[in-house]
C-alpha cells in the first residue's frame, strides 16, 4: 500500500479523500492556490503545497505545478477527485511518465470516455443503448440549426468536453438553437479550452439514473447499483438518491450489466459511473461515462457500506477487488442534498463571501439513521468566486425512503448557514414537494414545478400552528427574562401574562400558555393544545423543540419587534403580542416594498460583459438586455415585459454589486 498520496483537488472532495486515506494509515498531501491558503483541506492534510494564483487555470489544472508538488513531497500516488484534472488523460500520462500512480482508471479508458462522441461510438459497439443524435462536430450556428431540425426539436446542445452543466443548452426552436450553440461554445471555450459542440435528441419525461461501477486491474468489474439524479437545475444535479424509486430489479440488473459491459470494453479499472437517461417506459439510453469519483458517490456508500475512495486506492495499489457482485446489496435508502452558494430567491444566482456562520447538523451513524455532511468549508471561511459554488453535500440514510426524506428535512432545518445566499430553503421545499416524495420526478422537475423560480414556501396551517406554539413559548421565556433586569421598583414588577396573539404568514393565532418546569402547554383559540418542550434560551439561533412528541428545529433570528423564523424552506416574520398590542398592531398600515418593476437590477455581484440595448429602444418580453458574468458563468438578463429602455446606468466592463440599477424603463 502507498505511504503517501497527493490529492490534486480542493474543497469537500479533497477532504473526503483525505479522510479515507487517514483511515487507511496513508499520509496525505494537499495542494492549494492563493484563495485556499486557509482552506479546510489544507488544514486536514499532513502536508500542503502552494501551487499558484487563485484561478484554477493557473493552479489546480496546471499539470506541471501539480507534478512539481508531487516531486517535492515524494507522493507515490495521486487522487484527482472530480473536475479539475480528474479526467485529463495528459495528467494521467504525465504521472505515468514519472512513475506516480494515478488513483483512477487507465489512460486509455479516460481518453475513450472523455470525448462524448467517441464514447458513444464505443458504447454502440459494446451493445449499449444510446440516444439518437448527430455524432459529428458542428461548425457554426447555421449548421446547428440545420442539424437540430434533422434530429427534431427539442434538442440538446452539448460541449464535447462538457460536464457539470457547463456548456449545455436545450433548444426548442431555431432561435434557441442558434443562441444555445453560441453560448455553449463560449462557455466550453472558457471552461475547458475546447469548444467542440454536438447535438442530440432531447428526451422528454427523462430521468437521470446512473450506475456506479467498480473494477480492478484483473478484469473483475461489478456494479454498485444506481443513483437517481433527476433533480437537476440547468443540468446541474441538486438532489440525488440511492436507490432510485423508479427502477425495478430487472431494469436495475439490465442497466448494471450494460454498464459493466461498457467498463470492460475499455479495460476500466477504478470507480466509475455510467450515466443513463431513462424514459417513462423504463427505456434507458447511455449518456456518458464519468471516469472518476462522482460528486454524489456518498449515497452509494451509504446503501452499500462500501468506501469508494478506499476501493479506488486499493485498486490503484494493485489489489484485487474483495467484493463480488453477489456481495453487493441495497441496505435502506439514502438522499443527498447539495448545498450551493446560490440564492434561490434570485433565480439561483451565485453568491460569494464569508461564511459568518456555518454549523452543519451533527453527523450520526446508527442502525436506523445516518447523517453525513461532506464539506470543505468552516465557519469564518470564504466562498470564493474562483471555484464551484458547492458548500457541502448533506446526506441522510434511513431504512426507508420516507424516513430518509424526513431525516433530510430535519437535517436541513438544523443546518446553520449565514453570510451568503444559499439554496437551503429550496432544498427543503423539494423535500416537501409531492412529486418528490412520491418519487415521480423527472429531470424537468425544477423547471416544471418552479417555472417562475423559487418564491419561498407557504407552510400548511397545521405546521404553522406548531411554529406559532413554539415561538409563543420562546417569546414568553424572553419576556420573563426582560423582567429580571436590575433597577426594578420593588413590589411593582411587571408580570408576564398567559395570553398571546401570534401572527405569521398572514395568519393569526390566539393562544394561552400554561408553563411548568417541563415545558409549556399552548392552547389555541379553538380549544386544542400543543405541548412544547425545549431548552431554548434567548439568543440561541437554533431552537430544537419537541412539539407534541415530534421534533421541530427552527432557525431563530431577530427582526425589530419580532422573530425571524426559518424552517422547511419558509422564511417567516413572527410577532408574538399581548392581545392589546395585537389589537393596536392591526391599526398599522401595511407598507409595501418600493416598486422596482421599472428597473433592471443587477441580480448578483458581477461584471457587465455587454449591454444589448440602447436608451430609447423598445424591447420585447424575453429579449436579452445585457450579460452579466459571475462565477465564470454568463447570465443573460432578459426583459420581463415589453418596455422602452430609459436611462442605462452601466457600461460593459463595470463591476456591479447586488441590486445596483443597470437600466431603467420608461
Amino acid at each position, binding site marked *: 500500500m502507498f505511504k503517501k498520496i497527493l490529492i490534486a483537488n480542493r474543497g469537500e472532495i479533497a477532504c473526503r479523500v483525505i479522510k479515507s486515506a487517514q483511515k487507511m494509515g496513508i499520509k496525505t498531501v494537499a495542494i492549494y492556490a492563493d484563495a485556499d*491558503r*486557509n482552506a479546510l483541506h489544507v488544514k486536514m492534510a499532513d502536508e500542503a503545497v502552494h501551487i499558484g494564483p487563485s484561478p484554477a487555470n493557473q493552479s489546480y489544472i496546471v499539470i506541471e505545478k501539480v507534478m512539481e508538488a508531487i516531486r517535492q513531497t515524494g507522493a507515490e500516488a495521486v487522487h484527482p477527485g472530480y473536475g479539475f484534472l480528474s479526467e485529463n488523460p495528459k495528467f494521467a500520462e504525465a504521472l505515468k511518465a514519472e512513475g506516480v500512480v494515478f488513483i483512477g482508471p487507465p489512460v486509455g479508458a479516460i481518453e475513450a470516455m472523455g470525448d462524448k462522441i467517441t464514447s458513444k461510438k464505443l458504447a454502440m459497439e459494446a451493445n449499449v443503448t444510446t440516444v439518437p443524435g448527430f455524432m459529428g462536430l458542428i461548425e457554426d450556428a447555421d449548421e446547428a440549426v440545420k442539424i437540430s431540425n434533422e434530429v427534431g426539436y427539442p434538442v440538446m446542445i452539448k460541449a464535447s468536453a462538457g460536464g457539470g452543466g457547463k456548456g449545455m443548452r436545450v433548444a426548442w426552436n431555431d432561435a434557441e438553437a442558434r443562441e444555445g450553440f453560441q453560448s455553449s461554445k463560449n462557455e466550453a471555450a472558457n471552461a475547458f479550452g475546447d469548444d467542440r459542440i454536438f447535438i442530440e435528441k432531447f428526451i422528454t419525461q427523462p430521468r437521470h439514473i446512473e450506475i456506479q461501477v467498480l473494477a480492478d486491474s484483473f478484469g473483475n468489474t461489478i456494479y454498485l447499483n444506481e443513483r437517481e439524479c433527476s433533480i437537476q437545475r440547468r443540468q446541474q444535479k441538486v438532489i440525488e438518491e440511492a436507490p432510485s424509486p423508479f427502477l425495478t430489479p430487472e431494469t436495475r440488473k439490465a442497466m448494471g450489466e450494460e454498464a459493466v459491459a461498457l467498463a470492460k470494453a475499455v479495460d476500466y479499472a477504478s470507480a466509475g459511473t455510467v450515466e443513463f437517461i431513462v424514459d417513462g417506459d423504463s427505456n434507458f439510453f447511455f449518456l456518458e461515462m464519468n471516469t472518476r469519483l462522482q460528486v454524489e458517490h456518498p449515497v452509494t456508500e451509504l446503501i452499500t457500506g462500501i468506501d469508494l475512495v478506499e476501493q479506488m486506492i486499493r485498486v490503484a495499489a494493485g489489489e484485487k477487488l474483495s467484493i463480488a457482485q453477489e456481495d453487493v446489496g441495497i441496505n435502506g435508502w439514502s438522499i443527498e442534498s447539495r448545498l450551493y452558494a446560490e440564492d434561490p430567491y434570485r433565480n439561483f444566482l451565485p453568491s460569494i463571501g*464569508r*461564511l*459568518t*456562520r*456555518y454549523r452543519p447538523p451533527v453527523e450520526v451513524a446508527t442502525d436506523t439513521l445516518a447523517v453525513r455532511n461532506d464539506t470543505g468549508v*468552516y*465557519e*469564518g*471561511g*470564504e466562498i470564493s468566486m474562483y471555484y464551484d459554488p458547492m458548500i457541502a453535500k448533506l446526506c441522510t440514510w434511513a431504512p426507508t425512503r420516507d424516513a430518509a426524506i424526513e431525516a433530510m428535512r430535519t437535517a436541513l432545518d438544523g443546518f446553520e448557514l449565514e453570510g451568503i445566499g444559499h439554496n437551503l430553503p429550496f432544498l427543503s421545499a423539494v423535500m416537501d414537494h409531492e412529486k418528490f416524495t412520491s418519487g415521480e420526478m423527472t429531470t424537468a422537475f425544477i423547471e416544471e414545478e418552479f417555472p417562475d423560480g423559487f418564491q419561498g414556501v407557504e407552510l400548511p396551517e397545521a405546521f404553522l400552528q406548531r411554529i406559532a406554539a413554539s415561538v409563543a413559548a420562546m417569546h414568553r421565556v424572553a419576556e420573563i*427574562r*426582560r*423582567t*429580571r*433586569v*436590575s*433597577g*426594578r*421598583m420593588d413590589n*411593582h*414588577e*411587571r408580570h408576564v*401574562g398567559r395570553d398571546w396573539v401570534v401572527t405569521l404568514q398572514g395568519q393569526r393565532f390566539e393562544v394561552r400558555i400554561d408553563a411548568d418546569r417541563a415545558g409549556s402547554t399552548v392552547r389555541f383559540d379553538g380549544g386544542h393544545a400543543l405541548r412544547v418542550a425545549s431548552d431554548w*434560551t*434567548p*439568543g*440561541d*439561533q437554533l431552537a430544537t423543540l419537541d412539539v407534541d412528541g415530534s421534533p421541530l428545529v427552527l432557525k431563530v433570528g*431577530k427582526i*425589530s*419587534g419580532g422573530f425571524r423564523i426559518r424552517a422547511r424552506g419558509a422564511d417567516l416574520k413572527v410577532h408574538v403580542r*399581548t392581545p*392589546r*398590542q395585537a389589537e*393596536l*398592531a392591526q*391599526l*398599522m*398600515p401595511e*407598507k409595501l416594498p418600493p416598486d422596482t418593476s421599472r428597473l433592471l437590477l443587477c441580480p448578483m455581484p458581477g461584471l457587465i460583459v455587454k449591454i444589448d440595448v440602447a436608451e430609447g429602444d423598445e424591447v420585447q418580453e424575453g429579449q436579452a438586455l445585457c450579460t452579466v458574468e459571475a462565477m465564470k458563468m454568463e447570465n443573460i438578463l432578459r426583459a420581463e415585459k415589453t418596455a422602452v429602455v430609459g436611462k442605462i446606468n452601466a457600461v460593459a466592463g463595470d463591476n456591479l454589486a447586488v441590486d445596483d440599477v443597470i437600466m431603467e424603463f420608461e
Partner: protein
Amino acid sequence: MKDIHEELEARRDVARLGGGQRRIDVQHSKGKLTARERVELLLDEGSFEEFDMFVTHRCTDFGMEKQKFPGDGVITGWGTINGRMVYVYSQDFTVFGGSLSETHAQKICKVMDMAMQNGAPVIGINDSGGARIQEGVASLAGYAEVFQRNIMASGVVPQISLIMGPCAGGAVYSPAMTDFIFMVKGSSYMFVTGPDVVKTVTNEVVTAEELGGSATHTKKSSVADGAFENDVVALAECRRLVDFLPLNNREKPPVRPFFDATDRSESSLDTLIPESANTAYDMKELIVKLADEGDFFEIQEEFAKNIITGFIRLEGQTVGVVGNQPMVLAGCLDIDSSRKAARFVRFCDAFEIPILTLVDVPGFLPGTSQEYGGVIKHGAKLLFAYGEATVPKVTVITRKAYGGAYDVMSSKHLRGDFNYAWPTAEIAVMGAKGATEIIHRGDLGDADKIAAHTADYEDRFANPFVAAERGFIDEVILPHSTRTRVSRAFASLRGKKQENPWKKHGNIPL
C-alpha cells in the same frame, strides 16, 4: 358621595376620549395610534399612572374659552418598563392638533421635574402642530420652560424623544436637546421652518417628507438616531433601548440575567481580517459575535456609516460600542463620524456606561471639503470626549491604527484602561507606502528601492509589537478569545473610580 364617583367616572371618560371619536378615527386612518394608546404600548401593561388628567387651558381669546378638553392635548404621568420607572408625556394630536399651550407645557414640566428629582428617564412622544397660536407668547414661554428642563435634565436622567407626527418650529428644540430621537417612517417629520416658508424665502420647492422626514434625519442631518416602520414597532424598540440604559446618573447601568457563556470562543473571528490589507470586512460581525446573545442596539445606523455606535451587553451589563467600519470609506474618521461617535461617547460617560472601542482606522479623511468643514474641530470632539471620559474603557485594535486617528480612538494615552491588539494590528504613524515615500524621499525615482524600503517598513512597523514594547498595548490577544478577554477586562473595572479636576464644565470644541 355616589354623585362624585359618577362624576369622576364621567369626567375620566371624557378625558380619555381626547378630541373625540371622530378625530381618533382620523388619527387611526393615518396609521397613527392615539397618545393614550402609545403610552399603553410603551409601558408595562396596567402600570401607567396619570397626572393632570383634568387640566384645561386658560385662554379666553378667539373664543377659546368655549373649547376646552380635559388634559389639554398632552397625556403625562409615569409607569414602568420591565418594572423600571420612567416618566412619560405623550402629545394628543386629536386635541387642538397637539398644540402646546401654557398649561400643556406646565404638565410636561411637572413630569420632568419629578423625573429629575426621583431619578428616572423621561420619554416624550411628540405629535404636535406646534405652538397654540391663540395663546401667543404664553405658548412660547411654555416651550422655553420645557427647554430649560431638557437642559437641566441632560446628563442627569436619560431623555428619549419619539417623533410620531409633526414636530415643527420651536417645538423641535426640545427633542434636539434630548439624548435620543427616534422617528416613525412615513408619518413623522421635523423641521424648524416648513415647506411653505421655505418656498417663500428661498424659492425651494420641497415636500415635508423630503425636508424633514425620517430618511432626511437619519441619513442626512443626523438629527434622528433611528427610524422604525410604525408606531407599534417604534414603541417596542424604545422599550428595548430603555432596557440598556441606567435610570439616572447616580446608578450603574442595568444588569440582567444572560444566557451566553463569557468564555464562548469564536474561532471564525480568527479569519475576520482578510488576507489583503486593502480588503474590507464587516466590523458589525465582530460586534455581534462579542455581544451577549448577539444583541446589538445600534444608534445612528444610517448616518456616517464609517463608524458604528450602539449598545451591547457583556455578562448582562450594558456596554457602549464604538467601532470603525472598514466597509465604508475604509473606516476613516471624518467630520460626520467624529461628531456621531463623540456624542455617543459623551452619553455613555454621562451615564456610567463602559465603552468598548474597536479600532481599524487608516486616519482622517483628507480633502478640502473636510478642511473647509472644520474637521480639525470636529475631530477634536471625539478626542475630547474620549479623553474626558472616566468610565471603564477597553480598546481592541483589529487592524489599522494609523496616525492621529490612533490617538483619538481611545488610545492608552487618553486613559484607556485596557488596550488590546489582535496579531493583525498595525499601529504606526501611517501606512507603509506613505511612510516610505517620506522617509526615503531621495529614492522616489527608484521603484525597486522604494518597494524594498516599503517591505522593510512593513516588517518593522506593520504589527502590534512596536506599540506593545512601549506598553501602549497591554496585550496582544487572539481574535477568537476576544469576548472572554474583553468581558474579563470590564469585570475587573467594575470598581473603577476616576475623577477629572473640578471645573464648572469643560469647553469641548462645539
